[in-house]
């Protein structure tokens, strides 16, 4: 089992760091899955995570100049590691002016991801900073726990409003309530609602647009059989929503959410090189 990769382009490094920062905001510990072509950051929906789960996928070719991976076995050419993304985020934070960043899987006292940053210096040789991030190797028998979640049978799918606006609304609502109701309909309308004993606040968004999903099931997408105005709602933990929005440092190319009435809200944020899915379960 081997892994080594290298980034030399500053823009790629910057982009990669921002993705890691986003992941670090969403999960204290997560799984890093390495395949020949892609990296995945996975948070499974265990109770310990508060039921929220995450699937983030990026193509290694868009970030790394060198990427060599040998999995656990020829027919299972993948590596699953458990790590604290915040460590990776901190290691990359001060690497923003680096000449090169190398990442390698090592096993000195314990398995680690070694991030070696080569920094420019006024002296003849570069400054090298190494960060050894402890990781846990996930055995193959547990890989099934981390499969890609399927898109749920949603009631409504809608594009999100401008994330910055949504973030500031949610942040203020967070001061008033622990839960937020996300509701939307197939006419491009979405409401964010909180309700406490003293106050209820609703923010209305309209003209958001609904993404066209190719349907296997005729009655899902066909507009005729469905009431376009009827709202599907789910009440979720406001902190999780706030963390998702706070972690977005760049506007995604596409941002949408799928709501399964009273069950789950499935957020999908697409950028050119990376896709992020985040599932927040509804509070019973």
């Amino acid at each position, binding site marked *: 089992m081997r892994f080594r990769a290298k980034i030399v382009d500053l823009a790629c490094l910057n982009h990669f760091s921002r993705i890691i920062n986003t992941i670090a905001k969403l999960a204290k510990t997560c799984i890093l899955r390495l395949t020949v072509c892609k990296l995945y950051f996975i948070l499974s929906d265990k109770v310990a995570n508060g039921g929220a789960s995450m699937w983030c996928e990026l193509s290694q070719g868009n970030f790394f100049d060198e990427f060599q991976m040998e999995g656990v076995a020829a027919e299972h050419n993948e590596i699953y590691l458990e790590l604290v993304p915040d460590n990776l985020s901190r290691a990359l934070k001060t690497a923003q002016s680096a000449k090169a960043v190398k990442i390698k899987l090592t096993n000195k006292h314990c398995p680690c991801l070694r991030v070696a940053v080569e920094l420019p210096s006024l*002296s003849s040789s570069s*400054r090298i900073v190494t960060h*050894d991030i402890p990781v846990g190797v996930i055995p193959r028998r547990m890989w099934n726990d981390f499969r890609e979640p399927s898109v749920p049978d949603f009631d409504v799918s809608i594009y999100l409003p401008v994330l910055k606006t949504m973030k500031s609304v949610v942040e203020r609502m967070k001061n008033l309530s622990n839960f937020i109701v996300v509701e939307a309909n197939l006419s491009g309308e979405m409401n964010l609602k909180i309700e406490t004993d003293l106050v209820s606040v609703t923010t209305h968004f309209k003209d958001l647009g609904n993404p066209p999903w190719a349907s296997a099931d005729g009655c899902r997408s066909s507009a005729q059989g469905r009431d376009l105005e009827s709202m599907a709602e789910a009440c979720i933990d406001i902190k999780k929503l706030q963390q998702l929005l706070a972690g977005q440092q760049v506007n995604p190319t596409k941002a949408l959410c799928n709501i399964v009435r009273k069950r789950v809200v499935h957020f999908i944020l697409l950028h050119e090189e990376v896709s992020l899915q985040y599932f927040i379960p509804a509070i019973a």
Partner: protein
Amino acid sequence: LSRIGDELYLEPSESGLSLRAVNSSRSAFASFLFGPLFFQLYEPGAAGPDTELFRCKVHMKSFLGVFRSLPSLEKSVGKCLILLKPRASRLVLQLHCKHGVTKTHNLAFQECERLQAVFDTQRCSSRLCAPARVLAEAVVHFPPTLAEVTLGTGPGGKISLRNYVEDEAEASKTMLTELWLAEDEFQSVAVCPGSHITFCLKEFRGLLSFAEASNLPLTIHFDEPGRPVVFTLDDTVLEVHLVLATLSDLENNSQSPSTNRDQREHSPSCSVPGSVSHLPALSDDFADDLESYMAAMETSEGGSGGPPSPTFPLRTPRLAQSDPEDDEEEEGAVPGTPPHKKFRSLFFGSVMTPGRPGPAITEEVLAEDSDGEC
């Protein structure tokens, strides 16, 4: 200085005004000596044959409060007068500002003994000098909450800086960061190969920001693990010393208890993650502690058994002396203080003037715990 202690010691002398601070566990000491030429006017006062120049200490916060906002001070204050009035028991800080406004602050002070750490940079076997910027750039890679860092020398003359992790258990969970600096990044390097020391980053960062702001090169004098590390800044009108205790290296220390009483060994102890590490107060009674420690060491040979101390979390003792250390720690520790790391303290003893060979050792015993009551 406020990053080190809560009290500011002012000691005027013929060679200038010295401002000093020490931390509560006596493991960090700093002094800033402003030469007479730094001031427009400097009158240390008259010291008679029987009296010394008056010295005092004030609350750090009160003193800092007078100089609260540097940018506005720079704009409005023309002159600052510092006056010590022993008979009125007041330290007067008078700011002469624009438009004829004078702000006078009268701070209460307490008399005190002379605060002086024992150290001699000449006796240090290793010395490094670097522009503050290089060190600041090095330290930035470590998290702001990191307590201790190890400075070491490596192959090819390179200097390394890495975060210090106490025991195996923590090592498998903590990210280890190591930085290597080439020899030519330093202005001068005169080190013992293979030497290393571990010290607290917090107080060092304070000095580093001062050094960066004043654009002065920083010199690091160190010796073997356990002996204090001295950081100095030098200027024509300012001399700065920061003395920090370092972690002693048990593998290297000699076993003989009769050598230099400074060679008290402590195993690295447990820290509460995330807490500020408060180092144990120096016990008044060196001899007793050392004896009980040595006795315990002899009786529990390589003992990793024994019940965990109630105040300290269970840890894998890398070093055999963990249990006796707990006892010793409880003897010397102030009850109620949080668990702390065991650094080898320190260097407060009789007064020695730093850096000068053949010091005139006075009888004055220094900065012991009784002083802490003031």
